[in-house]
């Protein structure tokens, strides 16, 4: 699993990358009450705002970590946004994307580096 400085995690599954937010991020956000997901099929560029998470406190953006195409989104979050708090690294995933080159993931932090970042 890889991590971004925006507290997203990236996990490779076959030729897809699954994206979610870390436990640290989910704790900082507080109770999530709504997740605005992109449409499957959308092409995105690195840094595009693709997901908006609304918590009891505020709205936060999730940015596309890589160039690619969103191929699936986690529809379970529509009814149960609290999955982001309950299981951020598992059932609380946001979307799966197809990327041109999986080696681009090498540029992200590993778990040890991410842990050092959040102290």
């Amino acid at each position, binding site marked *: 699993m890889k991590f971004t400085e925006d507290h997203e995690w990236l996990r490779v599954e076959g030729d897809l990358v699954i994206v979610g937010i870390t436990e640290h991020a989910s704790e900082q956000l*507080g*109770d999530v009450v709504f997740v605005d997901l992109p449409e499957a099929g959308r092409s995105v560029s690195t840094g595009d705002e693709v997901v*908006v998470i609304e918590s*009891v406190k*505020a709205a936060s953006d999730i940015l596309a970590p890589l160039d690619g195409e969103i191929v699936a989104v986690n529809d379970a979050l529509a009814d149960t946004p609290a999955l982001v708090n309950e299981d951020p690294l598992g059932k609380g995933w946001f979307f799966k994307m197809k990327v041109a080159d999986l080696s681009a993931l090498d540029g992200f932090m590993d778990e040890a580096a991410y842990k050092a970042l959040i102290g």
Partner: protein
Amino acid sequence: MADLNRTALHALHLRLGAKMVPFAGYDMPVQYPGGVLKEHLHTRSAAGLFDVGHMGQVLVTAISGKQADAALALERLVPVDLAGLAEGRQRYGFLTNDAGGIIDDLMIANRGDHFFIVVNASRKAEDLAALRAGLPDYCDVAEVPGRGLIALQGPEAEAALARLVPDAPEFAFMDVGIRLWQGVELWISRSGYTGEDGFEISVPDAFAEALAERLLEMPEVAPIGLGARDSLRLEAGLCLYGHDIDEETTPVEAGLAWAIQKIRRSGGARSGGFPGAERILRELAEGTPRKRRGLRPEGRAPMREGVEIYASDEGGAPIGRVTSGGFGPSIEAPMAMAYLPPDLPEGSTVYGDVRGKRLPARIVPMPFRPATFKR
């Protein structure tokens, strides 16, 4: 950040693991480890303890010692019936400016030989200035030094406080009184800002932590931060100063006309005589072009402060703006307040621009969740 004020409960918040944020010049708990959602629901189902020690406590006393003198003097600044407020009773009111705008909203209690006023933390300086400038020389205005303020709110607040103050259940909604707890004077009122039954308790700083800890030992009482305080008051349809009301909004626009008793309105025995009376009395008679309304967005996406409201799903100019909005944990849905034309009927649909998308919302009456005050 370095010179943030601290309430008497600051050390307790840290021990309880609160996440602290700056608020109105104070370092205040926004939430405890349980989180906003749980704290909100706990207050609705049991009892929540809130540190509101950042709020201002003010005494207004007539030098003559006659309470009627103080009441009539305060009525020059506040458009509510204070001469008719019985001893031991409290009333919601506001200081208005010459344009009819709201300088602050406040609670005013008649304590026999003076009035006890609780004001918003962020408005203390403006309130004291308005009181000192607007009251006659025969009234003394004094900020109460060295007292904290604790709110105990929720259906089990009465039972909890009754363990320390046996006659607490005899307080009716908006009753005030002084009681001794372990030899310490507690200034108690049966009121709050959550839509729940409950109490607000002014306590000397030196005893505030002991009182809070004694209450928190009780199984039904949990500490509640500013995050849940905001969602609770919003569900209750209550205004937050600086957001839903300010110097540019009048009480009539804000839907607070209920707080202006008949005796202060046109035709009343003590009609007018307060700053902005001309406009406020006219608006009471003729209405206003905008009014604070409740919105229930469809779906789950909250419409937060600043969201522009439109009459249709495309085109046109905004017809209003959200002043407070969020997610209501008890109603399990988003809710918002916005200033909108008053002629839009309840139940009609308007559209909020959320991140470039116009999402529908219904105009609904407030509160979003009915209050459970003990009358």
